[in-house]
């Protein structure tokens, strides 16, 4: 496209720019003017991340031709006004920015609304924010923040915690300021000026063989292309995968396509050249093969093997057996059974995968969004054929992950391109590319059977579940192993048999997604509990309360819960809501024929950390001679807030205020391995490492003064004062000898949760601790149209200790929004829902009122009593909503999402059956 000269008025400043007239304003702002605060999430007007103001009205900058922006006043997040500044402060104080990638768009949309109506009410604010998607927050704190500004607040004080008071305080996230300013740098925001660009050519077929012809004529026809990489160009191993035994996914496919979107070649060159290249110009000849779609097809006799070494397409089996289910069912006064189906669910983080790589001598540096820097380091080293130490991973701000950025995406191929060309290489996935190539939540086919005796005590649970793990292993083994442990739910059940299979298909690749299969299993288990309650004439709360796991109980894996098992307290906390709302619903239904109201209840539990595997974390805190206090924290913050929470823990363990610290996060050259940001493990596992590091440094400091454990520390520049009752000593840090890293004093902590291996029957101690929750959902069902409106969710979560209640609430809000999506609207269909207008996630208008009740049954093994909450937030929501639909209509849902046409059909069948 021909470039023309434009003069744009951006944030009150006249800017001359060369751009193609048809280039979107978003692209021109970001790539030509380097104003990267405007984010691109979809390039199609579906997500609103690129919202800017054009003459004070909000627009998606991805839909505006640069030519049309000329002569208009453009306002971006980089601009400033009193209103925008108040919104920034309110977002910070409320915890309204989690990952921060939607934050600039949200703030711009809010600014447009409040410019028109400075006292806008909730409805007007929701209408204004309705065009911006957020996947982290559930929108609750965003709306609160905007309404706070609309109500005229102009001071937003976040808690300022003094020494020893950080844990439990609602301090603003310490990495929040750049997020509300739009200066936080995500994967696509790093713009090395001399970089080449990379674009993957992907197979449109889910199953095929292919050959690549002579590439020399292609390079000749497209002079801007520098290289076209194929499988043959990979210097090391052309494969990656989570486990040493499952390196089954190629960086570039080697003649075989196993899923739609498998990359067959990588174009490397000038940006214009790789973007303008028509894929049809690449000499790729496909032989399209029949594709296996769905686990049942892949398991059928005679189905071709998707991987030659796995003839039956069963990647992994998981198993747990305790007692004898036959015996358990024999004790039953009631037995319930059912078959349940769930869909592929897309993570739909608003930031598509992006980053860049550059070769530095004989080392490779990859800067990209990720949830697992050290795993990326291992994979990149392997693909390049280099030792791990020759690879540096620099995590960018991560615009949402939820499990989808645990696997490598852009990293290996970027590294190969940068290695071979010697030039920095950038890549930014399109939304469709992100959705096609990234992992999904596993679709599950679950058959389960559950019994209870006449008193409502559960006697047996058995489940068989097949998880469609798609073309590559990814985290399929983890799902297959985690589900048998959790599937029974957080209840005492003496006789259990849970069996799972992860099955390869040619469908989209399934991997890690908030809950690793447990949310799917909970849909089945909680439905059966409602069945049993009905059969026994008990209410749904009492049957759960009577069986709830509590301190001293043994789990189905035989683990005795010695502490912090707060499910009874969670259930007690929602009791009034459940019974009160259920009674109101019944009264409502007596006078309403078309809209039926219902209330549902579901419980969950979730083990923090990896299942029976070592998953250590190591942290370091250093003091320099100038008194700089630095927290070297290898845990990537994907928006959930670990940078803040771990700092709060470290600060209190050391005994200095959190505000004195600088954090260095995630860089593999500068921090130790804290493990993956997954499995709800960072607060618990890395939190313990942070606590130990703080305690270690404190011990060293106190030793300098021979001070007792209660001594008070005061850091003032290079002077560190230690006050121990009437005695005191001041250490001149400048006088101490620094180590090789520049630290004069440093503390380290390493923690690996105590677990044991599971035996063949799944018996052992898979996790050091568990999170628990009970959620009550209230819905209205339009029985004529089959639509469901979730009115309210009350969520009681045992988090051990809420290190930062604002952030814990934010996790729960966001988890509930994702659980709502899982229940009601989200279904990824390869080839059909590869964008954010055909694949629907909840908008601000779909999330109900949410009441969070934090239960703090302290975990003695946890840092200051804390446990994880990231995944627990989501698990109970879908079953609670399904229970509410059933209460409202009598329809027992066995397939999610409950799209209106599915519920309509179920209502019709129920009416026909009389």
């Amino acid at each position: 496209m021909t470039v023309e000269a434009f003069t744009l008025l951006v944030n009150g400043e006249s800017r001359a720019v060369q751009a193609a007239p048809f280039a979107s304003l978003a692209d021109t702002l970001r790539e030509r003017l380097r104003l990267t605060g405007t984010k691109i999430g979809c390039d199609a007007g579906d997500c609103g991340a690129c919202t800017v103001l054009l003459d004070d009205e909000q627009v998606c900058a991805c839909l505006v031709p640069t030519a049309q922006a000329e002569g208009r006043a453009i306002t971006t997040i980089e601009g400033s006004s009193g209103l925008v500044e108040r919104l920034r402060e309110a977002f910070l104080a409320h915890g309204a920015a989690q990952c921060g990638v939607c934050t600039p768009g949200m703030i711009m949309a809010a600014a447009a609304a409040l410019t028109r109506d400075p006292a806008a009410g909730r409805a007007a604010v929701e209408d204004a924010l309705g065009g911006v998607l957020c996947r982290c927050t559930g929108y609750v704190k965003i709306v609160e923040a905007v309404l706070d500004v609309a109500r005229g607040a102009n001071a937003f004080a976040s808690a300022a915690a003094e020494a020893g008071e950080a844990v439990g305080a609602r301090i603003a996230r310490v990495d929040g300021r750049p997020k509300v300013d739009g200066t936080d740098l995500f994967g696509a925001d790093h713009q090395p000026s001399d970089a080449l660009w990379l674009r993957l050519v992907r197979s449109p077929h889910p199953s095929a063989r292919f050959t690549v012809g002579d590439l020399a004529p292609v390079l000749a026809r497209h002079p801007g292309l520098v290289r076209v990489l194929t499988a043959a160009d990979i210097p090391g191993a052309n494969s990656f995968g989570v486990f040493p035994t499952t390196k089954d996914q190629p960086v570039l496919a080697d003649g075989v396509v196993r899923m739609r979107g498998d990359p067959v070649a990588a174009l490397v060159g000038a940006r214009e050249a790789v973007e303008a290249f028509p894929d049809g110009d690449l000499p790729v000849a496909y032989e399209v093969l029949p594709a296996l779609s769905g686990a049942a097809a892949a398991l059928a006799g005679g189905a071709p093997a998707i991987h030659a070494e796995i003839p039956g397409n069963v990647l992994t089996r998981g198993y747990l057996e305790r007692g004898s289910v036959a015996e358990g069912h024999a004790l039953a006064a009631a037995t319930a059974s059912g078959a349940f189906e769930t869909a592929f669910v897309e993570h739909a983080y608003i930031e598509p995968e992006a980053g860049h790589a550059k070769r530095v001598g004989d080392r490779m540096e990859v800067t990209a969004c990720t949830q697992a820097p050290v795993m990326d380091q291992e994979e990149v080293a392997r693909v390049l054929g280099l030792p791990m130490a020759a690879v540096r991973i620099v995590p960018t701000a991560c615009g949402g992950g939820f499990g989808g950025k645990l696997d490598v995406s852009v990293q290996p191929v970027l590294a190969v391109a940068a290695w071979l060309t010697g030039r920095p290489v950038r890549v930014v996935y399109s939304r469709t590319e992100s959705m096609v190539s990234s992992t999904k939540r596993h679709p599950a086919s679950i058959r389960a059977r559950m019994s209870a005796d006449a008193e409502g005590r559960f006697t047996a649970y058995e489940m068989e579940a097949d998880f469609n793990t798609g073309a590559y292993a990814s985290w399929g083994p983890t799902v297959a192993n985690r589900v048998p442990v959790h599937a029974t739910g957080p209840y005492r059940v003496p006789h259990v048999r849970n069996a799972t299979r992860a099955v390869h298909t040619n469908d989209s690749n399934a991997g890690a997604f908030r809950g690793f299969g447990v949310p799917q299993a909970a849909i089945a288990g909680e439905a059966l509990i409602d069945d049993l309650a009905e059969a026994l004439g008990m209410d749904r709360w009492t049957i759960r309360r009577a069986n709830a796991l509590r301190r001293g109980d043994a789990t189905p894996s035989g683990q005795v819960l010695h502490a912090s098992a707060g499910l009874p307290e969670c259930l007690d906390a929602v009791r009034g809501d459940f019974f009160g709302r259920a009674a109101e619903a019944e009264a409502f239904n007596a006078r309403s024929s078309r809209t039926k109201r219902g209330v549902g209840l579901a419980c969950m539990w979730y083990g923090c950390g990896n299942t029976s595997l070592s998953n250590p974390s190591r942290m370091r805190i250093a003091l320099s001679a100038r008194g700089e206090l630095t927290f070297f924290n290898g845990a990537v913050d994907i928006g959930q807030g670990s940078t803040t929470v771990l700092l709060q823990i470290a600060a209190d363990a050391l005994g200095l205020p959190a505000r004195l610290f600088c954090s260095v996060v995630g860089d593999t050259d500068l921090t130790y391995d804290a493990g993956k940001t997954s499995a709800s493990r960072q607060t618990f596992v890395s939190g313990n490492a942070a606590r130990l590091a703080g305690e270690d440094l404190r011990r060293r400091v106190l030793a300098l003064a021979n001070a007792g454990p209660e001594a008070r520390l005061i850091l003032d520049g290079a002077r560190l004062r230690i006050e121990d009752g009437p005695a005191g000593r001041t250490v001149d840090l400048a006088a101490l000898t620094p180590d090789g890293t520049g630290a004069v004093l440093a503390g380290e902590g390493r923690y690996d949760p105590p677990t044991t291996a599971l035996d063949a029957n799944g018996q052992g101690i898979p996790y050091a601790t568990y999170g628990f929750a009970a959620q009550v959902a209230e819905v209205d069902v339009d029985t004529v149209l089959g639509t469901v409106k979730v009115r309210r969710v009350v969520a009681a979560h045992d988090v051990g200790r809420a290190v930062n209640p604002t952030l814990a609430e934010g996790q729960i809000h966001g988890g509930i929004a994702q659980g709502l999506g899982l229940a009601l609207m989200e279904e990824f269909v390869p080839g059909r829902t590869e964008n954010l207008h055909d694949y629907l996630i909840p908008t601000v208008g779909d999330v109900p009122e949410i009441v969070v009740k934090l239960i703090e049954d302290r975990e003695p093994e946890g840092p200051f009593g804390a446990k994880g909450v990231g995944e627990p937030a989501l698990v109970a929501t879908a079953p609670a909503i399904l229970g509410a639909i059933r209460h409202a209509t009598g329809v027992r849902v066995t397939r999610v999402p409950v799209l209106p046409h599915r519920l309509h059909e179920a209502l019709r069948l129920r009416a026909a059956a009389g």
Partner: protein
Amino acid sequence: MRYFRPATLAEALAIRGGEDVAVIAGGTDVYPAHAARRAWGDPVHKDVLDMSGVAELRGIEDRGDHIRIGALATWTELIRAELPPLFDGMKDAARQIGGAQVQNRGTVVGNACTASPAGDGIPNLLALDAAFEIAGPAPARVPASAFFTGYRATACGPRDIVTGVLVPKRGGRGRFVKLGARKYLVISVAMVAAAVETDAAGRVVAARIAVGACSAVARRLPALEADLAGAAVADAARVVAPRHLSDLAPIDDVRASAAYRTAAARALVADCLAGFAHPPAAEEAA
């Protein structure tokens, strides 16, 4: 690709007459379609004729016996325009299109020209008996009933430009109901627009009803319109019968099944008509 941005209609018509161009106003359909093609390696885009500089196509005007919605008028301009109650449904549709960003950029005429079966403006224009003002080699005024010729196809020829849409000012009130799987940013599963005029006794004098997203082209329901004539508006919803919707031909897609669309369309038509039984203020209070 070339990018034309003329300042007058005459220039625009000259370009349109001589070049194979994609016409763009707000861009809310053009860019997503381009992104979808690019994602699978088809980056080529036609030359573009950007109409946004043609001042004479802007604005919404009262022209005595009709309202003219200029080809560049956005949904937001429609929402903010002082218009008679006949436009209430059209305004409701405008408020439910995309999010505020799309309403601020997308145009009423652009939505019609894209002619998606799920275009929220289209059933409204059918119910309002609108006419399209087409400039080109053979200028014409084409009634909405003849403008939409098929799936994403219209009577606007390759050398033509739609310059505006004309809505006759009649009595009565407009209503619109939309069914989608979420609150904002949602493509309709089905939708109904209606314009109903009543006499002092509350009887239907004239009713025009159209259903969208249930056939390749949104359709009026002439049999129902005829049956409603003379009926008490309070009973209008009860007049709706399956035979009134027999011309619809919905499809199965990722959003809904065909059978569901048929049932939902009937319910939505009844819902839409039921709303005419109450004055608008009472509805808002409810």
